[in-house]
């Protein structure tokens, strides 16, 4: 391997087919290695953020709140409280004397001002260090204001994003069991692990409703406190993005016996299988559901397939790279690229588990680079080595691709295009096609080499002087 690879990270990179599959993961990021990962706070914030009628107060210095202000494309069909950035903006004196008083004052002021249905209070690194008793303040304000005020224990240094997901799940779980469930149908479900980026959850809800299912709670895209409070009344939990909300599903299973199916809404097979899995679950209660679901899928595919085959003509044989937050999304993306006639040469994630990577390795082609917790040096090295046509990742990966003259598709929580469902597969294919087929790649140094002379020796032969 190249000198780009850090000695300490060698076992976090695997080339499919070169020896038995073994990949180290779930490890702390290497100091100084410019990891693409974020922190515990980030994990909690991304999961809870789309609950639109709750107040999200970041207890910490200004940066943590400022950098997460309205960056996601998580849409709401009603209130938009989630799009504001609230912070206690801790100052030096608060650090010395404690921030509890300020937190209390901030919560009281903001709840009076915005009348939210609940408040989430996120702790940041510094709050963990100075030891503010978040729970006590939240309890006091909750009693005074008569709404749930929930501490989210998300001190940034306590691990990586996964710990933040768990903290978010714990926080949501405290809401559950409090709402009225009397009008919930026996054929009902909660959508977990979807964040309604560009309205995606509305696409998925519509499918379920066409199948004859009541959707009780969106967790958390277009989310509402009241829906989450009665989510325990639903017959089934459908979990996408399992890394972020599987913990919540487990808690609900233990406490309320709610069964779980794990799905993905990306790509054709996974989207269809998501609907079929749900239909199978309800087949005893509603014997016609499976037929209705098949009709739905058929109808959607009849529209989608002809369009995809148009794209495929151009994209056949092109190569892609994938680097995403959770590994689960990578499976769907690999299959989606295959529908476009494309292969995947690099597949990686920030926070994959051993099981994720096993599965990833099993569906990858030989020669594919599988990588955990990568950094710009490694990513750029493999992008170049594999000479890919498009890289799928998040906002921090984009400039790496663009700088090297490689196409890019944004597939993280900041995107503003709906990529889920059958229509999402079309949007994805359209974006991949537009990107890969752009003429600009012909002119970038990667393909065209140097355009101008760098020394006298390089001057054109006809140079007269």
């Amino acid at each position, binding site marked *: 391997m190249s000198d780009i690879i850090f000695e300490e990270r060698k076992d976090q990179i695997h080339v499919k087919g070169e020896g038995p599959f073994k990949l180290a993961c779930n490890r702390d990021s290497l100091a100084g290695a410019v*990891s693409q990962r974020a922190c515990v706070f980030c994990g909690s914030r991304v999961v809870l953020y789309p609950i639109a009628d709750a107040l999200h107060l970041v207890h910490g210095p200004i940066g943590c709140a400022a950098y997460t202000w309205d960056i996601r494309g998580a849409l709401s069909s009603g209130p938009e409280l989630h799009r504001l950035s609230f912070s206690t903006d801790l100052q030096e004196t608060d650090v010395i004397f404690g921030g509890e008083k300020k937190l209390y004052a901030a919560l009281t002021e903001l709840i009076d001002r915005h009348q939210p249905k609940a408040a989430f209070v996120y702790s940041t690194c510094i709050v963990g260090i100075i030891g503010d008793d978040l729970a006590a303040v939240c309890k006091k304000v909750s009693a005074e204001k008569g709404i749930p005020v929930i501490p989210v224990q998300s001190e940034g240094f306590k691990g990586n994003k996964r710990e933040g997901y768990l903290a978010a799940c714990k926080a949501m779980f405290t809401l559950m069991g409090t709402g009225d469930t009397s009008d919930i149908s026996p054929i009902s479900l909660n959508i977990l692990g979807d964040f309604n980026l560009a309205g995606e959850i509305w696409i998925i809800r519509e499918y379920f409703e066409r199948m004859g299912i009541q959707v009780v709670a969106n967790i958390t895209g277009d989310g509402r406190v009241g829906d989450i409070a009665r989510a325990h009344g639903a017959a089934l939990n459908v979990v996408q993005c399992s890394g972020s909300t599987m913990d919540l599903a487990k808690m609900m299973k233990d406490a309320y016996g709610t069964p779980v199916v794990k799905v993905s809404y990306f790509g054709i097979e996974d989207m269809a299988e998501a609907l079929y899995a749900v239909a199978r679950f309800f087949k005893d209660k509603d014997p016609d559901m499976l037929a209705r679901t098949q009709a739905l899928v058929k109808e959607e595919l009849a529209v989608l397939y002809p369009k995809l085959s148009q794209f495929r003509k151009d994209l056949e044989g092109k190569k892609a790279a994938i680097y995403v937050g959770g590994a689960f999304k990578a499976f769907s993306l690999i299959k989606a690229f295959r529908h476009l006639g494309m292969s995947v040469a690099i597949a990686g994630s920030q926070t994959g588990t051993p099981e994720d990577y096993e599965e990833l390795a099993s569906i990858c082609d030989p020669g594919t680079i599988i990588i955990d917790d990568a950094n710009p040096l490694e990513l750029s090295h493999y992008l170049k080595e594999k000479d890919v046509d498009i890289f799928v990742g998040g906002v921090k990966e984009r400039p790496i691709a663009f700088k090297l003259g490689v196409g890019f598709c944004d597939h993280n929580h900041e995107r503003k295009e709906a990529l889920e469902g059958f229509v999402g597969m079309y949007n994805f294919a359209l974006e991949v096609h537009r990107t890969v087929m752009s003429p600009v790649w012909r002119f970038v140094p990667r393909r065209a080499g140097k355009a101008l002379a760098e020394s006298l020796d390089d001057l054109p032969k006809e140079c007269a002087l």
Partner: protein
Amino acid sequence: MSSQSDIADATAVLDAEAGPLKPKPEPFVSTTNACKLCKPLGATLVFKGIEGGVPYLHGSQGCATYMRRYIISHFREPMDIASSSLGEKQAIYGGGPNLKKGLLTVMDKYGAGMIGVATTCLTETIGDDVPGILMEFRREFADLGVAPVVNVSTPSYSGTHMEGFTAAVRAVADQLATADAKTAAVNCFPGFVSCEDIRHLKDVFASFGLTATILPDYSETLDGPAVEDYEKIPSGGTPVKAIKAMGAAPATFEFGRTLSEPGEAATAGGLLASRFGVPLKRLGLPIGLRETDAFFKSLESVSCKPTPRRRALERGRLLDAFVDGHKYVSQKRCVIYGEEDLIVGLTSFMAEIGVIPVLVAGGGRSGRLEKAVRAACEGLVPEMPEVAEGVDFYDIADRARELAPDFFLGHSKGYRLAREMNVPLVRVGFPIHDRFGGQRLRHLCYQGAQELLDRVVNAMIETKQTGSDIGYGYI
């Protein structure tokens, strides 16, 4: 029945509520939609502007990642920030070992020519002694010939990203500059300006026959060319060698009207003046006519050359455009917000062209904003703008709705307010992440003023055009 004093108290409260925007009373309660960012972010930008420089945050992983993505959204360039990636254990036992290991990793894999270490709220609070750890590090690895490491204390629970920026510039000068080398290059500390501004400044200095050591210079590192191989550290940046010679420079130009008082060593320019006797030219950001004139006068005196004809023509064209454009903008009311030095410059410029700045607001708390704004507006506007320090967008929005400006002048974060009020937002400064090319916007000198003027005038023309029932195609 209410007593007289009760009524007076109630009236005072009402007055206070309805009156001009004042800084929140201390201790203020909460911030909604901040008009500032945290201190370490400013420091990372400075370190990115040094040749071979790698910014390094001593803290937990999230800080580096968040700041990277925030900066990337504006510059659309890679922004590698290394981190100590501190976890729970280090938070308890101290982050020293991680810092040392991280530095070695960066030197080894990135081949860093300089590493700039900024602290975060975490490491400031657990009390890591960064200068001490660095001293140990240099001792332990002396045989490796380690790259220079500069450190700056940037606790994010005090001040703004601009204070982090200024502190990092000062730290670089403090820890690297000497008076040993001979140099003819003048120093320039421009503050947080765009990549295009830095390139333009170099041209301006060159047209007076001057070489300038501009610190920081991210004009290439954060706005570089397409490349064949990923550059671990992009080319460009202020050369460390030039920084080392800053103590022997014939003069320093330092921009900023809300920095510390001249003569104090709280800024890089002040420090070089007091330590090495480098003459300091403290000026406002050269935005608009008068501040640029002041800069050019200063350039004439340092270079002993008259303003070159090319620049004089730029000035003449700008004045010509002042006249051509005045009817479109005269007595239009605008709200200006953002970083303090930038908004002082913008206010000065708007006042010159007859725009009435009705509110000038920033998230910083230098205590010097109001005086600087007053000085910029003196004699040009019918009444002084309201000036607000330490405010957020909740406050700005509240006041702007009452003041009903014709347009906003500031960064992207004012967009929702401008949209709600259905008036144009002319985007300047940082961050601009809802438009293309923010890093290539020019704000400085006659040309920057020209381009900004064109944009403001066109915003007014467009508003009139789209708002008319006729659809004038000739306006």
